[in-house]
């Protein structure tokens, strides 16, 4: 159990973490989300007693981290996979950390096997890839077989096999009754791993709720419907029927319709009533990524001049207001990718031809869809 | 790729890190201040010195005696210029931008050497004029024989020392190791070697021992009888050392995986 009360950290005039209060309960994987620079790492460092809060406090199982009798046996943490002396071998690195808290040496070999590094145990960590470093970091966190685990971006650099393993590992650790607190930027991963989410932005708490609840609150799912291709009027008829029934209909590039605001059985019934045969009727859950983006919209610190959110908001060009057969109207064409365009160079700075088409001339044949 | 572009780039690199200014400023200030201090000491105690020392007294070299410590800062400067590329990983970006190893090395050496030479010359002239002013009646002037050579020699010496440090760091690819080895090599090894007769001759051929001959102006038997070379010969020996270090650095840079 981790409990933060009014946690605040200021660096000079900048407030990195602002009056943060939350609880992380045992038996769950709790995800910790927020844009870059929102104070996640600082919060984790304060939980671990590495940074001193300007005000407020955070306790682990009731006592501040630095007062835990045997910290490593209570709390394991992965903060920075590369925080290893490169000249040391993996096993001796773990051994030196284990000895610090009187953890038996055989536990070192145990955790090396758990993370799959037993063959690399005698290598110097300088030659480790990011993924191997990450595994070593996870091994360090598991050394004390602790009740509370903190992971900062645990899947960074791991291959799919490793990602899957971390996902299962975290779920199992939580199922054993441990408190698992994970920060990650990979929403698809978080959606699969975390039961509960704590979201912060600009150092403030934005949400503290279950993952499903979070998605439901912050976004809407949709249905993908495709009429039979053999029935040329089917799509228009279906679109009209769905729109009349109060659904919001957008067209996807392959001709299918994206419907929001109507349940699947209802769509089925409407299609049936309109005499349209369906070749596809699939539900799409909204993704955590989308939900997260909507929530943290105003709290992003480093924004490109080329706003990626355009993809999320500019779905309307897909709509077919008059049911004209306008093939998947392409989004606003991106003439020069680099915004702002350099002055006096015709939109392209150096080597690039002024228009993409000049290079990939054949690409003009098909409506290029930058989505 | 135009070599001038590499030079511009290296100049930006060198002027935008803090270590450059503090190492070179330390080199200048320490050398000038200590030289001035010792000149003042000597001026006050000249009459009490033994006659042999009075005869062999070299007012020019005396004003450069702060170089003993200033050179440490020059070594650290050279080691940091190269070592920080490795410790930060910048070397990979640099090599991706300038894949020709020779050009990169040459660019870096040219810029850093030129900078060290300029600072060295400034150090030489400042130390000289300040030192001579404090030496009072025992002072000399630029017009005297060999004096201008010695003052310019300070610049050459500092520049060569910086190149030497860069070559060694390029071979070791580690700042801390390079600094420790360079300082032991330059400051402590000569002292140790000259303690024993058998090794005293070896000490003459160490880079800084040989190179510092350029800063002497008085060639009385009392001073130079030991050294088997003149000022330019000494500098030549130092140049050989420097060339060896740079060659070693180039080989490491071009052969080893970055």
């Amino acid at each position, binding site marked *: 159990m981790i409990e933060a009360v009014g946690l605040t950290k200021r660096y000079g005039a900048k407030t990195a973490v602002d009056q943060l209060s939350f609880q992380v309960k045992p038996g769950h994987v709790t995800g910790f989300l927020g844009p870059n620079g929102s104070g996640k790492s600082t919060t984790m460092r304060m939980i671990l007693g590495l940074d001193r809060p300007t005000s407020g406090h955070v306790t682990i199982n009731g006592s501040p981290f630095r007062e835990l009798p045997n910290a490593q046996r209570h709390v394991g943490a992965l*903060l920075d996979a590369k925080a290893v002396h490169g000249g040391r071998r993996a096993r001796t690195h773990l051994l030196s950390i284990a000895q610090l808290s009187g953890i038996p040496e055989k536990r070192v070999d145990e955790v090396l096997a758990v993370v799959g590094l037993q063959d690399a145990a005698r290598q110097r960590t300088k030659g480790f890839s990011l993924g191997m470093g990450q595994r070593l970091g996870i091994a360090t966190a598991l050394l004390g077989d602790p*009740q509370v685990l903190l992971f900062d971006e645990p899947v960074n650099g791991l291959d799919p096999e490793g990602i899957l393993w971390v996902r299962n590992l975290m779920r199992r650790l939580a199922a054993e009754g441990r408190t698992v607190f994970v920060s990650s930027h990979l929403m698809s991963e978080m959606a699969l791993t975390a039961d509960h989410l704590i979201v912060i932005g600009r150092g403030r708490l934005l949400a503290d709720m279950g993952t499903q609840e979070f998605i439901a609150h912050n976004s809407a799912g949709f249905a993908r419907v495709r009429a039979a291709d053999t029935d040329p009027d089917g799509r228009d008829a279906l679109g009209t029927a769905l729109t009349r029934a109060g659904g919001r209909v957008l067209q996807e590039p392959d001709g299918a319709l994206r419907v929001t605001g109507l349940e699947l059985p209802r769509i089925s019934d409407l299609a049936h009533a309109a005499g349209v045969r369906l070749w596809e009727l699939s539900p799409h859950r909204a993704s955590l990524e989308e939900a997260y983006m909507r929530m943290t919209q105003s709290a992003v610190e480093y924004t490109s001049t080329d706003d990626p959110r355009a993809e999320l908001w500019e779905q309307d060009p897909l709509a077919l207001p008059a049911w004209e057969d306008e093939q998947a109207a392409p989004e606003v064409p991106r003439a020069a990718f680099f915004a702002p365009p350099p002055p006096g160079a015709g939109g392209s700075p150096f080597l690039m031809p002024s228009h993409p088409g000049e290079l990939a001339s054949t690409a003009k044949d098909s409506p290029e869809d930058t989505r | 790729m135009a070599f001038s572009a590499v030079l511009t780039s290296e100049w930006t690199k060198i002027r935008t890190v803090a270590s450059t200014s503090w190492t070179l400023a330390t080199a200048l200030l320490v050398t000038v201040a200590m030289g001035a201090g010792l000149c003042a000491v000597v001026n006050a105690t000249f009459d009490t010195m033994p006659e042999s020392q009075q005869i062999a007294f070299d007012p020019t070299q005396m004003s450069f005696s702060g170089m003993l410590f200033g050179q440490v800062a020059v070594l650290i400067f050279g080691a940091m210029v190269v070592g920080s590329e490795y410790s930060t990983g910048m070397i990979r970006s640099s090599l991706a931008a300038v894949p020709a190893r020779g050009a990169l090395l040459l660019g870096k050496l040219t810029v850093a050497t030129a900078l060290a030479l300029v600072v060295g010359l400034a150090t030489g002239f400042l130390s000289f004029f300040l030192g001579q002013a404090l030496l009072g009646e025992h002072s000399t002037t630029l017009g005297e024989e060999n004096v201008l050579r010695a003052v310019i020699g300070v610049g050459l010496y500092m520049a060569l020392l910086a190149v030497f440090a860069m070559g060694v760091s390029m071979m070791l690819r580690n700042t801390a190791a390079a600094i420790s080895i360079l300082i*032991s090599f330059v400051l402590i090894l000569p002292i140790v070697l000259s303690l024993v007769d058998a090794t005293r001759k070896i000490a003459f051929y160490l880079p800084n021992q040989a190179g510092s001959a350029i800063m002497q102006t008085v060639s009385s038997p009392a001073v130079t009888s030991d050294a088997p070379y003149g000022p330019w010969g000494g500098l030549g020996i130092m140049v050989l050392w420097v060339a060896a270090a740079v060659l070693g650095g180039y080989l490491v840079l071009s052969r080893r995986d970055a």
Partner: protein
Amino acid sequence: MTPTTTTPDRPRSYSSPLPSPRPHLGHALASEWTKLISIRSTLWTLGALVLTVVGVGMLFVSQTSDRDYESISFTTPALFGLMVGQVAVMVLGVLTISSEHATGLVRTTFTAAPDRFRVLTAKYLVFSVTAFTVTALSVFVVGIAASLAHGGAAAGAHTADEWLGAAAGCLYVTLLGVLALAIGALVRHSAGAIAVMLGVVTLPPVLGAMLIVWEAVAPIGREILQRNVPVALSQLFGMQEGGDLGAAPSNFSNVLILVLITGATVAASYVMVGRRDV
């Protein structure tokens, strides 16, 4: 991994079968020892120390005759190598802590052991015992070689005091290393801390020579000239220097001064390490 165990009062809490001793200094000592012996820079620096002390010392022994030892002690040959070797001890001292900061390992360490003083104390202890042992061993190898090779009648009388002096000399070098470690803990940057330590060793003689000029500060200059590192070390190894500066200070006072300086810096390092964000 272990299966779930449930306790009645905390229904969903995990407890581990591993022993959970209250960690003490002994654990930290074992940890620091593992850290020290598992990196190559330890081998390099200590190897350089042994090589210079024994190598230069043996060279000196081979170049001297029995009569030379009338005025110096048998341990004096080790001094010349140690003048270089002390740099290696200081570098190792700095690296012991600064490499943790450079790599970020310090965060892992302090996460595993939030009682930072325990870790720091272990670092000081492990480093100083190692440095002293290696220094003393190489010094005594040279000393014994000298006494065996030149122990004839012409060498005059030698007492056990010179061996004690050499031991004190090794302690002196070790203290310099501890000072380097403390400065490393304060500065947290390898190159910076090494530069500071080299300044501490090499600057005072020159500073003293400058201060001695002015009447007002001449006594201070004289003190510094007599008490700086190279002079103190020479004295401990049986090389009496100076004379025109007046009576040399005792070995005891030389060591005491370094003990005080090192102690103050070490104390500062405890305060800073305890207080700082890492």
